């Protein structure tokens, strides 16, 4: 490689690819280009406890001097507009960035609520530092919030708002954490959050956002009821940002850029990592939206660019802080046939171990870090959460 590696995206995975290229010994040119004007930063704290005190600098992965010392060029506040696979990307401001290998780490963006009134002021999403500032400022003045969506983002924000004494109603079209968690965990969280004062409207959809003077004042549900609110927070999932991938003809599946266990895309010049990807392995496709996945795919992508052929075998894991409930999960909950609860649900301290054919495939733990850590080690040793192990023979 001579003209170097261009990393498109300055989130968790983009940052990790660039730093891993250096730690793995690459001495060519490395450039990170990102839409946002900030140094690469951590996103998870943005939704936890409305966690951040407004000081975004505490969330940056590394100070600016680090990039200088590692000779990593940063092009920030200026996204890539077009990519010519002959080796040059053009940014919105007209900058030309040459490359001989490309990393797509464009991440995902919040799925938009598409109902009348959804573009009013006071309908907010949470993905970026400015989003979190908006939410933190609002949280200081409001008394009633509606949260649309009962995924991790929705539940984290709902519990953070509750802890500040704000009245919160969560509206969701199915159950809690319907894409990721076992029903046992979902039922527990429903009861636990209800006990802490969150109101749930499940198996309901939002018909429209109720507005007054161009500002959201609540939502109208599909049964016609109006829920008053000072703010409407939408957390209904994320959409991989695949515009560039599509423009250069990469294969997509489940909405994401298809990669294999070496983080390779359908084009040999291009690797991809993080929320933008869909992992295809042994014919099975899975999407993981997590810090762990972003980090491990990124390390693998860097290794692949440098000629290594070591597959990414990391155990998927995830955490979510919902008020006093610290959830940690590992493995894969799809396809289990038996689940066993260890510990005391009534005391908010337990683990759910799920099995397929008698083999452990996932753990979901609440306030039980030791149980979680030991199950994670077990999963790493047995690898029985992998698709090949789950396929009936």
């Amino acid at each position, binding site marked *: 490689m001579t003209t170097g590696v261009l990393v498109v995206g300055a989130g968790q995975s983009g940052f990790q690819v660039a730093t891993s290229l250096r730690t793995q010994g690459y001495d060519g040119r490395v450039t990170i280009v990102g839409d946002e004007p900030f140094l690469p930063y*951590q996103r*998870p704290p943005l939704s*936890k406890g409305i966690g951040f005190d407004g000081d975004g600098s505490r969330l940056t992965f590394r100070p600016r001097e*680090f990039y200088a010392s590692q000779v990593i060029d940063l092009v920030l506040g200026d996204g890539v507009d077009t990519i010519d696979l002959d080796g040059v990307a053009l940014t919105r401001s007209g900058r030309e960035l040459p490359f001989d290998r490309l990393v797509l780490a464009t991440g995902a963006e919040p799925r938009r609520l598409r109902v009348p009134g959804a573009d009013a002021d006071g309908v907010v999403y949470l993905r970026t530092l400015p989003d979190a500032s908006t939410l933190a400022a609002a949280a200081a003045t409001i008394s009633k919030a509606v949260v649309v969506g009962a995924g991790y983002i929705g539940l984290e924000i709902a519990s953070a708002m509750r802890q500040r004494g704000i009245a919160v109603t969560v509206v969701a079209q199915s159950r809690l954490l319907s894409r990721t968690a076992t029903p046992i965990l979902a039922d527990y969280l429903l009861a636990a959050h209800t006990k802490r004062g969150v109101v749930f409207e499940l198996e309901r959809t939002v018909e429209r956002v109720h507005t007054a003077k161009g500002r959201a004042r609540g939502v109208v549900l599909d049964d016609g009821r109006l829920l008053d609110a000072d703010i409407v927070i939408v957390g209904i999932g994320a959409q991989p940002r695949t515009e560039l991938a599509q423009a250069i003809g990469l294969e997509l599946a489940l909405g994401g850029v298809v990669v294999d266990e070496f983080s390779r895309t359908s084009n040999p010049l291009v690797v991809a990592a993080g929320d933008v990807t869909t992992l295809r392995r042994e014919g099975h496709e899975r999407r993981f939206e997590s*810090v*762990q996945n972003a980090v491990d795919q990124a390390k693998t992508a860097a290794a692949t660019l440098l000629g290594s052929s070591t597959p990414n075998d990391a155990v998927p894991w995830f955490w979510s802080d919902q008020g006093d409930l610290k959830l940690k999960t590992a493995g894969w909950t799809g396809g289990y046939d038996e689940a066993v609860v260890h510990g005391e649900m009534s005391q908010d301290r337990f683990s759910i171990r799920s099995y397929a054919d008698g083999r452990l495939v996932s753990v979901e733990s609440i306030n*039980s870090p*030791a149980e979680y*850590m030991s199950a994670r*080690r077990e999963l790493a040793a047995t690898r029985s959460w992998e698709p090949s192990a789950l396929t009936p023979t």
Partner: protein
Amino acid sequence: MVQFTCVDPQGVEHSFDGPEGASIMEIATGSGVDGIVAECGGFMSCATCHVYVDESWVDVVGTAESKEDDTENELLEGVLDERRRGSRLSCQINLTPELDGLRVIVPKIQA
């Protein structure tokens, strides 16, 4: 400023001056010390910033067992490298004037 030293898995010593209140993890990762991963960013969710507090400093820093909240202690039970008396998550060690001169050793592997 509080001075401390991190010994990385290759045995290389890195000396830092950090502001009071900052965590060892923040300062060390900010300078790219090898071996401190800190995947979760300092929220006691991953146990990938495990360090060994130098034996002579353990009583000054305090042990994970002695903390009222047991989360750190439980996470440390699951770390991949050996658990020792001085094992701590470096995101949970905040610099204070008493820690001036502190020395921590980074284990060979993280969780």
